[in-house]
């Protein structure tokens, strides 16, 4: 009888753990298909891809730890060979190559976004601030690895790996704000 009781108590403690794991997996999968959803924009020649959108959304919706974990899962999906990195590339080589810093930045950005957003009150300005901080983290990692591995100066790396994407990122922040508001009622996690 006692034995059965302890098992029951034990599984009750573990019960809470499965759902967050699966939500992290879901956001990893969403980020992966984000590389394939292309939205043509009337104002910019480069179509918007959505990885960064889901990175920021994961940070806002899942919080720091879980959001960061979901991005780790996304990077692992790419490493084990699913074509989920931008343009359909994959593998350890991408992570170690010139553009790998952005992928590491995704993990850090989801974490930072969740961290800043949770601490402040749930208001629009704090969400915008958190996402801008997240974007800054993505470019910090991305540009540093680019300049280090591709042997460029920091100015060159910023010109190649940051400036062309800034307009798209501003639009993505607005999109995250709209979408996060509308999906919050559906979310039953935690």
């Amino acid at each position, binding site marked *: 009888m006692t034995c059965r009781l302890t098992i029951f108590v034990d*599984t009750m403690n*573990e*019960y809470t*753990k*499965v*759902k967050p*794991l*699966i*939500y992290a*997996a*879901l956001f*990893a*999968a*969403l980020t*992966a*298909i984000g590389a*394939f*959803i292309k*939205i*043509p*924009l*009337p104002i910019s020649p480069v179509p*918007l891809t*959505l990885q960064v959108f889901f990175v920021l959304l994961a940070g806002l919706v899942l919080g720091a730890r879980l959001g960061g974990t*979901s991005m780790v*899962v*996304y990077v*692992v*999906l790419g*490493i*084990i*060979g*699913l*074509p989920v*990195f*931008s*343009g*359909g*590339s*994959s*593998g*350890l*080589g*991408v992570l*170690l*190559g*010139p*553009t790998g810093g952005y992928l590491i930045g995704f993990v850090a950005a989801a974490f930072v976004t969740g961290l800043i957003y949770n601490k402040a009150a749930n208001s629009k300005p704090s969400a915008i601030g958190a996402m801008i901080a997240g974007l800054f983290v993505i470019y910090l990692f991305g540009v540093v690895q680019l300049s280090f*591995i*591709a042997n*460029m100066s920091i100015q060159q790396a910023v010109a*190649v790996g940051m400036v062309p994407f800034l307009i798209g990122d501003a*639009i993505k922040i*607005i*999109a995250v704000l*709209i*979408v996060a508001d*509308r*999906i919050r009622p*559906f979310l039953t996690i935690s």
Partner: protein
Amino acid sequence: MIGIYGHGRSYMHLLDPRTKLVLMAGMSLLIYSARPPALAILLGLVLIVSRTSGMTVNRLVQGVRPVLIFFGVIFLTHLLFTPGDPLFVWLPVPTLAGFVTGGVLVLRFMLLILYTSIMIYTTSPSGLNYALACFLRPFGSFGSDLAFMTGTAMTLLPGLFREKDTITKAQAARGYKPRGLKGFTALVVPLLHRSFQRVDELSDALESRCFHSKRRYYYYRRSLAMRDYVAVGVYLVLAVVILFFL
């Protein structure tokens, strides 16, 4: 979504995923630290290994194509901004030094992608997932949790793709154009809604079957075979030759 993995029974296919992961990490060290003449050896080796594991040239090119534009930009930056002797006498910018540094760098990046695509071609995603979980074992339950999440994400992906196509068509039938912010929210909000429902069902199903995260997810074991040690040995010889004699 087309995976890159191709089934086969070549030497590379039969190697343990863990060995291949370690070899890949080792090769990337070599690729970054090798002097330019040694890169020719690495390039020759990649062609031989891909040939013997049954990869066509098409497959190799497929792996490189997505990153080609960015590599081109890196090459151009070096070509145009490296000081030195000009390539053409009447123009100051494309310099010989820039051409060489840019070319060598892009060759290194290409090699990295080529070796990666051999690894991915010869190893199933679940095999690599298992190998990664093995290496993360020192981090406690995080390794098995990560393997579980990766496996779950892999099973969710095809359904999400189908869902995305269905919603795109449904919204187009309602007159939404897939352009701009409005078209975007019309696609993403239903996609998220549906996927949350699906994921809630999945986690309820798992929880009601007493699934919990401290359980072992992998009930099979693989042990290293002779060919794994041979492959690591060959790599070590190659590394010594490239690092000290070239």
